[in-house]
């Protein structure tokens, strides 16, 4: 409870990363919201997708000491061969204080996601104000999907604006129009992910429709919000001639000031293992620089101000 009788907004955050250099201008602190309506195959933060806390397990660090099994209040951990496994569907972990992760000195078990209040999050953000001031940086709310926890996002944006901290939202766009326009209007910059224009293949690879995403983007642009579109270029998924042409046709008329191409990378592959999940792009390699350049050139040719990031 706050002194004015209201309950302070809070939400589930899975990571706060300082010295983030690639999600907006300057030196930034990235606040990762947990939970996303999409579940893209290439997602490099698979622990961001579920709205509940999850336990990650690195078998290579595990010393098989069994402390986690001994401490688990649900008795849900047991040794299977050369690894410790969680029995049941893992839902027990979602509501657990994860004592097993605290007990694990080898750091084989770690928890992704904890409930934090606005005050707690802002205190973390404020630590690096001197770096923001010096670099023109600030905070980036990312995820997961920040718009999926709208009350938290709105309260954080207000708190940061009051402190004159530059704010950026990184979004997949799959959110209610009203939230995107009203809450998005509080941010200094929106990084807007665009994946696949073809609705069926969008659904196939991301688990959700793209119509709402596209309409939200159009609405933001129409409202004059500062938007940078970011396209992850995933070989075999959205780098084909048809996909690139569709992106060109869609983006050119929007009159954006900046479009970033993000080459697919495999940094997150190992995390799927730790979550006990399947990585469906096991055989996909990062796109060669020449391929990225060719896509960029095609976009530039139709007047899209494109940059290759990464």
């Amino acid at each position: 409870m706050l002194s004015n009788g209201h309950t302070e907004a809070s939400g589930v955050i899975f990571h706060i990363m300082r010295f983030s250099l690639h999600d907006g201008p300057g030196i930034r602190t990235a606040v990762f919201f947990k939970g996303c309506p999409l579940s893209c195959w290439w997602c490099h933060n698979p622990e961001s997708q579920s709205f509940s806390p999850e336990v990650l397990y690195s078998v290579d660090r595990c010393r098989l000491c069994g402390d986690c099994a001994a401490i688990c209040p649900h008795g849900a951990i047991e040794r299977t061969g050369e690894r410790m496994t969680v029995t049941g569907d893992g839902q027990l972990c979602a509501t657990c204080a994860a004592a097993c992760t605290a007990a694990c000195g080898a750091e084989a078990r770690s928890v992704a996601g904890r409930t934090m209040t606005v005050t707690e999050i802002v205190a973390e953000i404020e630590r690096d104000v001197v770096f923001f001031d010096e670099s023109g940086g600030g905070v980036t709310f990312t995820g997961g999907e920040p718009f999926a926890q709208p009350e938290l996002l709105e309260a954080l944006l207000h708190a940061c604006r009051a402190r004159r901290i530059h704010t950026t939202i990184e979004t997949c766009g799959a959110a209610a129009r009203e939230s995107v326009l009203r809450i998005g209007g509080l941010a200094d910059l929106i990084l807007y992910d665009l994946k696949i224009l073809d609705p069926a293949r969008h659904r196939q690879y991301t688990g959700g429709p793209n119509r709402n995403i596209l309409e939200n983007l159009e609405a933001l642009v129409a409202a004059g919000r500062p938007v940078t579109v970011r396209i992850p270029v995933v070989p075999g998924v959205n780098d084909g001639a048809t996909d690139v042409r569709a992106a060109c046709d869609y983006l050119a008329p929007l009159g954006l000031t900046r479009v970033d191409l993000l080459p697919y990378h495999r940094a997150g592959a190992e995390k799927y293992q730790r979550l006990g999940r399947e990585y469906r792009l096991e055989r996909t390699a990062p796109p060669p620089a020449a391929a990225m350049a060719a896509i960029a050139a095609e976009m530039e040719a139709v007047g899209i101000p494109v940059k290759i990031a990464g």
Partner: protein
Amino acid sequence: MTERVARLRAGSLETKPWLSLERARLLTEFYRTSDAALSIPVRRARSLVYLMERKTIYIGSEELIVGERGPAPKGTPSYPELCCHSMEDLEILHTREKISYTVSDEARRIQAEEVIPYWQGGSMRDRIFAEMTPEWKDAYAAGVFTEFMEQRAPGHTVLGDVIYRQGLLELQADIDAALGRLDWNGDARAWDKQQELKAMRIAAGAVIRFAERHADLALRMADEEPRAERKAELRRIAEVCRHVPAHAPRDFHEALQAYWFVHLGVITELNTWDSFSPGRLDQHLAPFYEHGLAGGTLDREAARELLECFWVKFNNQPAPPKVGVTAAESGTYTDFCNINTGGLKSDGTDGVGEVTWLILDVIDEMRLLQPSSNLQLSKKSPDRFLKRGLEIVRQGWGQPSIFNADMVVEELLRQGKSIEDARAGGISGCVETGAFGKEAYILTGYFNTAKVLEITLANGRDRRTGKQIGIVTGDPREFGSYDELFEAFRRQLRHFIEIKVRGNNVIERLYARYMPAPFLSLLVEDCIANGRDYNDGGPRYNTTYIMGTSPGSVTDSLSAIRFHVFDRGTASMDELLAALDADFAGYEKLRLQLWNKTPKYGNDDAYADGILRAVFDAFHDEIDGRPNTKGGVYRVNYLSTTCHVYFGSVTGATPDGRRAWEPLSDGISPTQGVDRNGPTAVIRSAAKLDHARTGGTLLNQKFSPRLVEGESGLEHLAQLVRSYFKLDGHHIQFNIVTAETLREAQREPQKHRDLIVRVAGYSDYFCDLTPALQGEIIARTEQAGF
């Protein structure tokens, strides 16, 4: 770089350091034959005359700046009056794998037949060890502290602007005036002052004579030189050497040569720690550069070539060979001359000028171990100065390092220096703050705070030997609170600091009495006016330092005890002590808790950083402000050179989960690999230390090359530096090299001979480092961008 410079540089790089017994032989000859009734200062000064009159004069075939300390480049003398090497020492120097010096059979013969018979038992090293108490010797043997003056003379000496204003002849006139002012009936020390001043006068003459001998040789060489161009150069060299340092320099060339002769005078007189340094070289040279340009007698390229020839001279002088603990605490060929650039002028305006840019180009092009170099970055310094420096830094050979010039001023002001003297100051050695040309700021030894904690946990015993060397502060198993433990640690700290200070006070007097440095003294302001030696309180300011080490390891260890034993009860004190005694054998689970599940310094964590401040306060408050024997006081600074490796090698397992004998944390950097929240967190943690109350701190950061690529990479580095300095940090330096590259260099050293890395306040060839230190550098957390 010109072909001349390229050849001189290559020659310097290819020549292996070798031990020259010329100085030792001449000095011994002098002391055997000279009048023992002479006062000590006068006899010392006469010995310098003897050396400078007789030592081999060397002028290299293409050199423009001339003069060597030894008979030829990389010929490194010994100083038997300070440390008389045994025959075993010479064998070790010759054969040791790292930092070796070739010792010829002839050198061994001279050492055995002439040097040892005269000096054995009578060197400063012998005197010092004879005077130290059993408590001091126990603590020294246990590795609680080191002693800088046991093989080398007091140093950390930086020249101001005096030689650019006055020639040595004019300084002799000042000395004569001071002699004339002596108050024979009112000043009980009048005779001492007279002897010291006479000695300074004689010493000035010795170095003038040394320069003249170069002029003579240059003329002889010119007569025999068939090539007209070189003939003219040699004649010009002769003219320069005839003029400086007897007279004040008239142009850029003479200014550099004047400094170089004075440098050689200082480092021939005694083996001063950190050799000698020109300090604010860019500011000293600026008037000569501008004058030369305006008069059409100099252009930028000619100035650059002269500077580069000057640079090679530094690289030709490896640190005189060290043995024993001194070699372990400072295992490098580098002799720590550190050129300051930028900063402030004494009137408080920005000191960056044309010569600054020129010097940065020279640093970039020369890539030499010596001299070391740094940026003095003030809030008034332009960003392009910082970025130009960082462009060099990111090439990954560790130079230049970066200092907060405004903080240096604040530190000096706090110590009572005038604002003008503070602004004209800077740093020398690794990170040590001083008022250039006006201060003797003597570093006396590293202090192993982690070892003191270990002794506290063993109730005064050295766990390695079982010997009771500390005071009884109670069995830690009986402590009811963390505060009780910390109080015991504080008392143990005081006990060993008392021992160190007592030893220092004796050693200071031994040097004041037996080892005056009259030549150095006449260059440092107020020594002439005071009629007192540099080693006897002559300078305007006299500071004695004890260097704190490894606050990271100590903080993490105390944090681990507080967190796991007193807060959480993860382990009992009994269990923890048993684990430490066993070096964690059978306690791996506990070790992992201690290592991974403890709030650690370097993560912007209030719990750990609060302990850091308490550790700093305990160390600082015990030392700062104590009087030394020279009218000055004690101060602290935080650096470790290679001493954290030596101290680690004598310190058993620590409560932070570090295994026995492994390196401790370096400088004020976090323990290797425990900083996990990125560089901004490290910077915020390090800034919680009160740098203003130190005489310098050292923060190392390792970055992957990818992070600093391109203009944005440069900007991010610059922003980190500016932010740290806004938070009142003293110094930061970067290693831009991947751990993978370093491992590769370990595997195949022959392919990576040129790999220079930042160690701790200086850079060194990676392959010259001990395996322990190599491992330590690899273990430092490599910061990546996210």
